[in-house]
């Protein structure tokens, strides 16, 4: 029987216990590096981004047009072979205004991540950022257009689109 008088075990430390060496600690810097093969679908997507175009795929079975492209339809479980060029416009499905960066430091100027549903797809979109817009002016459903990096500076990365701006 568990009674309320049982104190759960565990010794809680404060940050200064570690800083002031009151407890022993050891530090290690992992070196985990990968070079992922982008494969057929994402490989093509990225090289099209380099050319300033967004490409998706269409499942011949159910007719869904999706982005990011994939060589299989997850709903029909069939091979997908049709490529479809898509406009670089769409609408905001959801967004946030972020005051923290990846390493949790505070940002003075917030960034605006959003899921952008690309025109011409079956309600499919991808994660990206919004730019050249005031946070308080962003709305779900707002129409946006891609702002591309200069062609010669593109690398074949999702960041070849700088961000999406209000159309």
């Amino acid at each position, binding site marked *: 029987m*568990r009674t309320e008088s049982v104190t759960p*075990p565990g010794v809680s430390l404060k940050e200064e216990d570690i800083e002031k060496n009151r407890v022993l600690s050891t530090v290690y810097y992992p070196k985990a590096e990968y070079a992922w093969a982008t494969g057929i679908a994402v490989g093509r997507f990225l090289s099209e981004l380099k050319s300033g175009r967004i490409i998706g795929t269409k499942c011949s079975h159910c007719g869904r047009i999706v982005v*990011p492209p994939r060589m299989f339809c997850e709903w029909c479980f069939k091979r997908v072979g049709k490529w479809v060029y898509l406009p670089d416009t769409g609408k905001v499905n959801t*967004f946030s205004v972020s005051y923290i960066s990846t390493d949790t430091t505070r940002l003075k100027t917030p960034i605006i991540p959003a899921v952008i549903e690309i025109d011409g797809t079956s309600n499919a979109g991808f994660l990206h950022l919004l730019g050249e817009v005031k946070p308080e002016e962003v709305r779900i459903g707002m129409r946006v257009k891609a702002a591309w990096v200069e062609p010669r500076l593109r690398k074949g990365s999702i960041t070849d689109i700088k961000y999406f701006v209000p159309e």
Partner: protein
Amino acid sequence: MRSMNIKKRVAVVGAGMTKFMRRAQETGKELAFEAVRQALDSAKLRIEDIDSVSMGSAPDAFDGVHMKGEYLLDGAGGWRKPYSRAFVGGGTGVFSPIHGWFHVASGLFDTCLVVAEEKMSSCLPHPQTAFLTIFDNMLERPLGPNLIWIFALEMQRYMHVHKIPKEHIAQVAVKNKRNALDHPSAQIARKVTLQDVLSSEVMAWPVQRLDISPVSDGACAVILASEDVARKITDSPVWIDGVGWNLDTTYWTNRDLYFPRYVANAARMAYSMAGIHNPRREIDFAEPYDPFDYKELHHMEGLLLCRKGEAPKLTVEGVTERDGKLPICPSGGLLGVGNPIAAAGMMKICELFWQLRGEAGKRQVPGDVRTAVAQAWGDLMQIGTVVVMRS
């Protein structure tokens, strides 16, 4: 082709839990040991009585140990036993008992020790930084995302579709942090007011600091046993009558985040197994996963405990208070007790165990509680793991 012809009944016969702390002095192995020790003592069992062990622990990146399931196993009681680790992100805490359930319900083992452990504090500068690597390696990481983004994007969508004011959501944080004052393992239980939550620092709008559960170290363990063995160990076994889990597509940007359909699928699977036809009426209380306040509401709807969009209203009306008609997170949840990812889900299983045996002390839900549901959620807003327990 669903056969659903469950051959063996499985019960929880013991549970144990450490404190949930921002930074534990104990190593991961020691945390696991403490929880297992407590669980064994509570059931008056020895490690020799355990036939198999199932471990649940979330990303290896926190501990900086690859294959950390292997590393933790001696602390978790796995030495020279059939030991394995299931890992479904945040859903792990409720999936590991399901994995344990497979061990016993299959007839392969009479007992299974299920342990969930998390030592997030090892990761510097902040455990949250490890979460960068949950995003898509090719298309998302280059954008420099932060874990909070996912929650913010989902919360925004949920609020938009149902037109929910922030105040209603913030009520959940107030309730759970208050409930947690009665939980001995609670990390930062304190009374916060609605105003405190609404004026806390904005992290990624609409998420503010007090909407978020704290990062923690901690461990929990439960012991499962087959029916005959369970009855020899205790007079009040708590039965696992329903299990369910469901994983949605990786392509989260191709789905509408306002409703967790995968939680609903998992819940239907568990309710079907448990013979529950009207969850709103047949469930006495629930412990849905609440890493953020809006998640409790999102999951209440996913668990089919109320209609889509109705959860905030029930909260504001007090229905989900401990003495309400449908208590939600009487434990104090992750918001109140702490969020050591996998152990947090297991904390809910432990809570169901203690509540259904009348052993929850000051947290005890009044009245005759017989049936309860625990749920966890994880991956990229993808997995729902559900367990229905009955006394």
